[in-house]
């Protein structure tokens, strides 16, 4: 299946992917609305930068997802290769934040549930971070691991 991969060599650490990710999942029609007026949309991708190293990281959709195994509500499942949170069931205890070895699950802006990259399954065919990375540092492709 297609997954998101990052190329550290091409990443400038501009954080645009974080803005586009948060916007795409905010339900807002214009980007500024997702971040202003107290609506601090939360990105599900994280850019790490410093010491000349920049790269973005988001859910790896693990073969053996610890977030899913450890979820106390049974709110996380893996469907067609995509690890998803059922927001109807999530109570925001953040056991998944405790469990993810890559730090890829974030407390959502409402403080009552967790959020993660679901490959923009709800937002279109190409994930927003990939579509909007101006340096081609984030790609969406099949790699047959």
């Amino acid at each position, binding site marked *: 299946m297609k997954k998101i*991969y*990052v190329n*550290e060599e091409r990443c400038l650490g501009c954080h645009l992917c974080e803005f586009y990710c948060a916007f795409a999942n905010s339900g807002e029609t214009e980007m500024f609305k997702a971040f202003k007026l107290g609506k601090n949309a939360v990105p599900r991708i*994280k850019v*790490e*930068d*410093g*010491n000349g*190293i920049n*790269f973005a*990281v988001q*859910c*790896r*959709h*693990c*073969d*053996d*997802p*610890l*977030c899913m*195994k*450890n979820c*106390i*509500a*049974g709110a996380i499942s893996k469907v067609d290769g995509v690890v998803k949170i059922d927001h*109807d*069931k999530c*109570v*925001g*205890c*953040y*056991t*998944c*934040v*405790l*469990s*993810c*070895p*890559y*730090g890829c*699950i*974030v*407390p959502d802006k409402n*403080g*009552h549930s967790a959020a993660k990259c679901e490959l923009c399954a709800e937002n279109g065919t190409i994930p927003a971070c990939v579509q909007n990375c101006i340096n081609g540092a984030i790609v969406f492709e099949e*790699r047959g*691991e």
Partner: protein
Amino acid sequence: MKYEYVIIGNSAAAAGCIEGIRETDKKGTVAVISDEKYHIYSRPLISYRLKGDVTEKQMNYRPADFYKVNNVETLLGKRAVSVDSKTKIVQLETGEKIEYEKLLLATGSKPFVPPMDGLDSVRNRFCFMKMDDVKGIEKVVKKGAKVLIIGAGLIGLKAAEALEHYDCEMTVIDLADRILPSILDKKTSEIMRKHIEAHGVKFILGTSAKSFKNNVVTLTNGEEIKFDILITAVGVRPNTELAESAGAKVERGQRDAAPNSVSGKAEPADNCLAARSNSIHARGFITDKKQAVKGVKNIWAAGDCTVSEDITTGTSHIIAIMPNAYAQGLVAGRNMSGNKDTFDKAFPMNAIGFFGLHIITAGAYVGDCYEENDGENVKQLFSSDNKLNGFILMGDKIKRAGIYTALIRERTDLTTVDYKLLCEAPQLAAFAREKRFDILSKGA
């Protein structure tokens, strides 16, 4: 009735076991026995249910068609009363005899209610562990009710948080001198206590209930408190009686090893697990790493009724958390169905919030302590011998906590990572380039 696999218990360990069995054995007959009549649900969600955040249906730990999809027969609302490991028969209270080839004990634990004078005279007395506890409380709780909670641990305080929703007047008493002693050290416990107090909960610590007369308690400090509802949340005890008589090995969890096993500077009296509640040292089933119970054949055990070896202390005790229960159940299910798997990465970990202040904790609080603390957002990382032993994270500092958890789980040699960078913030940039590339090019 006869089944290839019989599971006593219907929570996380049972789900793990069923999923473990069905990875390979699609046909073997499976039966689940539980004294509760409900579809498999998440016990910790009872406080969210009481608060009104979730409905009974949203508490389902697995989808409504879980038993059907996995071809599992359910014997719900039926209590198992004995196990005969020679004839391989589970006897139910109803008189039914259930024959098994392989048995999983996923019996969990029950509330421990210490003997207190006059307790029987109390009206509206509850524990807070099961669906029926919530249903009972819901029936009697009224806006502004006076609630007395005995026990300032995870269960007692989750009940308090839920009951704030009913504008209850709440008093929490505990024999310990601080709240949440099983997961927080003195400093962080103090921060959380103040935060919870700001939401109207009154604490009386270092005190216990001496006697009850109807709905008035006299405390050991002489104080008298009137209440409408009593919730006892002192601790839990594993359900082991069922199989103990059948020869299953049951032992008390060990106290912590002497602090000489770590070269730490932290004060052991405050920071190591010795401060934790007695529940973890209660008697539980002793299993091998495949979750097979020692002393008997064809019986496995998983979850809160078992003793696990804690990789952060090297001691064996009860680690009553859902992630362990599921992981142990999964390993048991795999072994029961002929696969090989072991569970050898047990350690305590908790993620929980009270009135909007979140905490994530793991492992043992021993060793050198790296600390950031602004009075609400706290990070404490405990390390020794180049290993991360444990952490306490609070408020904003919970972000990306799993990167720290993985260092504990894998017992990562901290000389192979940039630990200074990791102390500042959990990040993958602190890992060697090859390791980072490996992570980014795939996952676990």
